[in-house]
C-alpha cells in the first residue's frame, strides 16, 4: 500500500514535488517577467528572481497604460470578463436546471421530443452556428453589450443532462411525500430539489465559470469597442508581431491578473462543495 515505509513516502513526495515544479514554473516565470522592465525582458536571459518593477508595472496596467488596447485599464477588462463568466455560469445553471426539472418530473406531450432536441444540440459545435447567431445578435442590436456576450452561450445540453441524471436518482417516495405534505411544483423545486442539488450546482458553477472566463471566439466577434473587451481578447490584442512594439511586462501583468479570479472561484467553491458533500449525504 501507499506510504507504508519512509522510503516510499519520500519517493511519492518527490514525484509530487517534481510535478508541481513542472506545472508551476511557467506561472512563476510569468510572474517574474511581470516584475521587470521591458528592456530586461527583451535582453535574454530573463532573470529567475523577481525584479523591482512590481508596483510600477501593476499600477500602469491597472490604470490603463497599454497603448494597443486603447488605454483601457485591466480593472475594466476583469470586470467585463467577470460579468460574462458569471452571466454564462449562472444563466446556464438556471436554464438547465429548469429544463431538467420539466423533463424529469412532468408528463407533457412531446416530452421526449424536447429532450432529444436539447440532446442533439450537443452534436453541433459553437463554430457551426456562430454566423447565424452573430446575425441575430446584430439585428437585436446586441453588439458591444453584456447581453450579447452572455446570451448565445447560455444554452447548455451538457448541464441539462447532468441535472437530469441527478434528478432521476431522487427517490419517487420523496416526491410523493412532498406532494402529500402539500408542496406544489414550485415549493418542491425550491424547498427540496434545489437544496439537494447544491453540490451539483457548486461543481457545475466552477466548470462553467472557467468555461465562460476562457471564451475567445465569441467575445472576439461580438465586441468592437476596447472597453467591452474581455481579458482574453485584450491579451491577444496587446501582443504585436514585432517584439519591440509589445509591452511584454504589461502583458505578463495582465496574464497574472487574468488567472486570479478562476483560482479564487476554484478555491472558494471547492471548500463549499466539499462541505456540501459531507453535510447532505442522502
Amino acid at each position, binding site marked *: 500500500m501507499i506510504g507504508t515505509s519512509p522510503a516510499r513516502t519520500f519517493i511519492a513526495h518527490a514525484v509530487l514535488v517534481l510535478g508541481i515544479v513542472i506545472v508551476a514554473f511557467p506561472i512563476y516565470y510569468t510572474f517574474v517577467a511581470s516584475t521587470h522592465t521591458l528592456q530586461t525582458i527583451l535582453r535574454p536571459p530573463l532573470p529567475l528572481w523577481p525584479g523591482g518593477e512590481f508596483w510600477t508595472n501593476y499600477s500602469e496596467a491597472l490604470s490603463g497604460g497599454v497603448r494597443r488596447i486603447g488605454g483601457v485599464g485591466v480593472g475594466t477588462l476583469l470586470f467585463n470578463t467577470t460579468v460574462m463568466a458569471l452571466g454564462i455560469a449562472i444563466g446556464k445553471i438556471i436554464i438547465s436546471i429548469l429544463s431538467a426539472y420539466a423533463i424529469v418530473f412532468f408528463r407533457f406531450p412531446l416530452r421526449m421530443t424536447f429532450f432529444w432536441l436539447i440532446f442533439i444540440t450537443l452534436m453541433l459545435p459553437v463554430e457551426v452556428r456562430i454566423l447565424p447567431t452573430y446575425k441575430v445578435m446584430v439585428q437585436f442590436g446586441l453588439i458591444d453589450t453584456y447581453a450579447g456576450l452572455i446570451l448565445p452561450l447560455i444554452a447548455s445540453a451538457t448541464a441539462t443532462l447532468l441535472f437530469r441524471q441527478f434528478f432521476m436518482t431522487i*427517490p419517487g*417516495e*420523496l416526491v*410523493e*411525500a*412532498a*406532494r*402529500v*405534505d*402539500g*408542496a*406544489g411544483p414550485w*415549493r418542491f423545486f425550491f*424547498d*427540496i430539489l434545489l*437544496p*439537494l442539488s447544491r453540490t451539483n450546482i457548486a461543481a457545475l458553477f466552477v466548470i462553467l465559470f472557467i468555461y465562460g472566463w476562457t471564451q475567445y471566439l465569441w467575445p472576439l466577434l461580438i465586441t468592437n469597442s476596447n472597453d467591452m473587451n474581455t481579458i482574453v481578447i485584450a491579451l491577444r490584442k496587446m501582443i504585436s508581431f514585432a517584439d519591440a512594439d509589445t509591452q511584454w511586462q504589461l502583458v505578463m501583468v495582465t496574464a497574472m491578473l487574468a488567472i486570479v479570479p478562476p483560482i479564487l472561484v476554484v478555491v472558494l467553491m471547492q471548500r463549499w462543495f466539499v462541505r456540501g458533500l459531507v453535510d*447532505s*449525504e*442522502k
Partner: protein
Amino acid sequence: MATVDLKDVRKVYSGGVEAVKGVSIAIPDKALCVLVGPSGCGKSTLLRMIAGLETITSGTCAIDGNVVNEVGPTERDIAMVFQNYALYPHMKVYDNMAYGLRNRGTPKAEIERRVREVAETLELAHLLDRRPRQLSGGQRQRVAMGRAIVRKPKVFLFDEPLSNLDAKLRGQMRVEIRNLQSKLGVTSVYVTHDQLEAMTLADMLVVMNAGMVEQIGQPLDVYERPASIFVASFIGAPPMNLLPLSETGSGLALADGSAIAGSLPASKAVTLGFRPEDVNVNYDGRALPGALTLPVTVDAVEPVGAESFLHCASGGGRVVARVAGRAAAKPGDKIDLVAQAGKLHWFDGAGRRLE
C-alpha cells in the same frame, strides 16, 4: 373523524396491465384496516389511489363521504408513511415534521407547539436538531410517523412502514403503531406483505390476491374461517396443510387412494385443509377418537423452543404438525396425526370454502 369508502375501484395502467380489478372496501371511522397480500397483488396501488398519488381508472374513492377521485393528495387531508420513510435529507427532524404544516400556512407558534408535542409522544424531543442521516432506522421510522401525526389528518396511510427494520425493532414498532393509532383514533389503512403484522395490527383485515379482494374480516375470523385456499395458505405460519382429494365410488380419497377415515366430508370438496396446531400427534399407533386420522412418516423436526414443528410425509402429500414443547418423535418415525372434525376446512374446485 373519517370513513374511507372504496366502490368497485379499478386501476388499469397505460400499458394495459390491470393492477386492481374492482375492489370495494368500506372502512369504518377510527378503524385500522390492513391490506395484506403477496407482492404484485395490487395492495400498494390501492393505497396510492386512496392517497391520490395514482389516478383511479373507474369506481369511486370517498373519504368522509366525499368522493375524492379528482382531488389532489394535498387536499384529501391524508398523511402517508412510506416504506423508505422518504424524509427530506437536507432538513432537520424539526423541519421534516413542520414542512407539511408550513405549506398549509399554519401559524408558527402552532407549528412549534404541535411538533414539540408529537416529538414528546414519540420520544424524539432530543433529536429535533439532527439530520435524518444521523438517525438510526427506528428513529427515522418514528420521524416519518411524527411527520404524519403532526398534520392531524383524516386518514393515515402506511405503505409497508416496518419492512426496513430488523425483526426485534419491527415487533416493538408494531405495538407502538397499534397503541398510537387507537389513542389518536385516526382511521388508518396499512399495507403489508407480512401476515404476522397483518394479524396483530388489524381491526379489519383485507386479504388481496391478483388485484382482487379474497376476504375481508376480523383477523381471527379470517384465520379461523379462510374464505379460499389462497387465504388459508397465506395467513398463518407455517401455513395451513392442504391435501388434494379425489372422488371414489364410496366417497373421497387422498392422492394415494386411501379413503379418508372418520366423519363425512362435504360433498364436491376437492381440497382438505387443517392448521398445523389443530392436529394431535398419536405416537403409538392406537386409534384416537377424532375426525381424521392420517398416518405419516416424520421427515424433519424443528424445535423452536416453546413448540416444535414436525414436517411429515403422508399418503396425501406433505403436512406440518405443531406440537407444544419438545416433540417425542425423530425423523423416520411413523406416527398418526389426528384432526378434530370442527377443525377441518373444505374447499371446492375453484378454491372457495365449503361450509
